């Protein structure tokens, strides 16, 4: 395995049972994540972008092992972590952390800020009380909740949304992770607070030499936070590329539609018409053809009869899963 990558995901699948027939036999499956592969370099932040229900959060949860994958492999620093059990699995949970979307839901209201941030230390049996207090105080300082002594013994309801998210970030960092999955960490926050959290996360990434998988529905946020962006549609990654390349030269018809639909904070800017038909279908037992077929403006006969297209490197570092784009590039 290549040492360049902190995380590699190979053919990851996560199916959920959609209904159960007689005797509990599962007849239909939601293909939440379907044969997804990508890798994240050391110190890199990869944006995972898509509409609600496309499987981006499930991908994140499988990576932090909150969900067991149906199949597929996961490598952290080149090591296959799929079969980790016992102490090695615990070790994995130290190295890989997650920050959740809603800071009002993700913090236990009955615990003090100290207890919340120190809980992972407790679980992993790290340090004594005094050391834990020092560690928590340092982290509070680092995430901008100063002076730490005035926050440590308070409860989540005494803090604002932005402050709570800072606590959630401190908790994710307390075990010195090398990799963090951030699931829409700013989407619940107000505009004037949001930037502070985004900047904090970028500073922390540098200071602690971490890598991120940054899950968001907002392409503008992904652009601000990430070196590369992967676009997901119904459980599949349809395009992945370096950020500015993806925004200036989107190739997949879905990415193009998505980019055209994003409102621009400039009243004099006029966007085009997104070329897309219909609306998102449910990913329950989808046909093997391209997931985007039903909505695609450039589909052909071949697309209907072929399997979902593989991700192909069309330009250096720019991968697209579309037969038509591939054909046009060659022809």
């Amino acid at each position, binding site marked *: 395995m290549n040492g360049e990558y902190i995380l590699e995901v190979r053919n990851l699948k996560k199916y959920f049972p959609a209904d159960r027939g007689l005797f509990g036999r599962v007849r239909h499956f939601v293909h939440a994540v379907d044969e997804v592969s990508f890798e994240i370099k050391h110190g890199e932040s990869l944006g995972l972008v898509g509409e609600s229900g496309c499987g981006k959060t499930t991908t994140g949860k499988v990576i932090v092992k909150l969900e067991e994958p149906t199949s597929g492999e996961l490598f952290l620093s080149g090591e296959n972590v799929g079969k980790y059990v016992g102490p090695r699995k615990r070790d994995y949970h130290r190295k890989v952390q997650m920050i959740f979307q809603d800071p009002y839901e993700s913090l236990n209201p009955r615990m003090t800020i100290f207890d919340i941030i120190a809980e992972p230390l407790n679980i992993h049996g790290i340090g004594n009380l005094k050391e834990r207090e020092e560690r928590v105080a340092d982290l509070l300082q680092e995430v901008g909740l100063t002076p730490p002594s005035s926050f440590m013994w308070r409860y989540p309801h005494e803090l604002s949304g*932005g402050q709570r998210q800072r606590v959630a970030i401190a908790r994710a960092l307390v075990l010195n992770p090398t990799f963090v999955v951030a699931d829409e960490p700013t989407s619940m926050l107000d*505009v*004037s607070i949001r930037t502070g959290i985004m900047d904090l996360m970028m500073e922390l990434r540098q200071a602690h030499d971490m890598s991120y998988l940054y899950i968001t*529905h907002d392409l503008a*946020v992904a652009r601000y936070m990430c070196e590369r962006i992967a676009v997901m549609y119904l459980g599949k990654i349809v395009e992945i590329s370096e950020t500015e390349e993806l925004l200036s030269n989107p190739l997949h018809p879905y990415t193009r539609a*998505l980019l*055209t639909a*994003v409102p621009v904070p400039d009243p004099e800017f006029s966007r085009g018409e997104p070329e897309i038909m219909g*609306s998102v279908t449910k990913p329950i037992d989808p046909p093997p053809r391209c997931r985007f077929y039903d909505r695609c403006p450039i589909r052909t006969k071949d697309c209907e009869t072929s399997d979902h297209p593989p991700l192909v490197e069309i330009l250096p570092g720019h991968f697209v899963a579309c037969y038509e784009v591939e054909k046009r590039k060659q022809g």
Partner: protein
Amino acid sequence: MITLPLLSVNDLVMYYKTKMGYVRAVDGISFTLDRGESLGIVGESGCGKTSISMTLLRLLPENGEFQRGHVYFDDGSGPVDLIGLPEHEMRKYRWKGISMVFQAAMNSLNPVYTVGDQIMEAILNHYPDTSFDEARAKVAELFKLVGLDPKRMDQYPHQYSGGMKQRAVIALALSCDPKIIIADEPTTALDVIVQDRILKEMKRIQRKLNMGMIYISHDIAVIAEVSDKIAVMYAGKFVELADSVTIFKRPRHPYTFGLMSSFPSITGEKKKLFTIPGEPPNLLNPPPGCRFAPRCPNATKKCSEEEPNFIEIEPGHFLACWNPIKQEGERA
């Protein structure tokens, strides 16, 4: 003949009474809205933007106390102060004069009635002389107007997708031919592609029917797309109001500037975003003077002592600030 604006709001003040004192949610708001015009009200959560619409429609919760101010509504038959009207008179203006697309509109449909029945109910309530068939025909027409298949009027809300529910709620708001629609975060829960379609649809309908629109949102990109003029709200007050290009290109209030510069975009050069320090104040006990002063880079002693008035600094451009951003400091 002088025509008055469709809606003129003067010094509107509404507080919520709580055990701890008054929450000053709407504290001296003034604006006008004309036929065919759209006003965007942008501000962060808790700044009082939704409270404005509730006050205009007089749909306040029990602890909402109207303090002072006037809301003149004029649909051509002379101005009426909605605030002074008795409740049974007000009903004639609610929904027929001003209607509303509520926040989380997708959940504002009743799950046990068909979508068509719910819209018919509104029509039959406000126009008691309408026959059943006429009302059904009107619903079919509304469905077409908002881009829904009239065949779907006998379906229940759960059979609709999110975007379709949103369209149905817009049809409901249009059901009594309102002169003004207030849309409170009309697309916040929707995915961008659906959002794009709904916003375009609303703009098209507004133009077609020459209605006044008030869009309320925290999302300045959405507001930029749909508004002719924009009011920036902070802690219960408007701090700046002007046509949308002025607000985006030549903002004078430091809060407006901060808000505009803290919003990431997928277009233009990627630049470092601006962070407004601190957090919005508690409206139970707002700071004296300008409410933005504690977070403002331009604040002086005067700012935290004396409250700035909301004055017209150039035609159509209102500002409440002692130390506005200099005109030369134009944003690219």
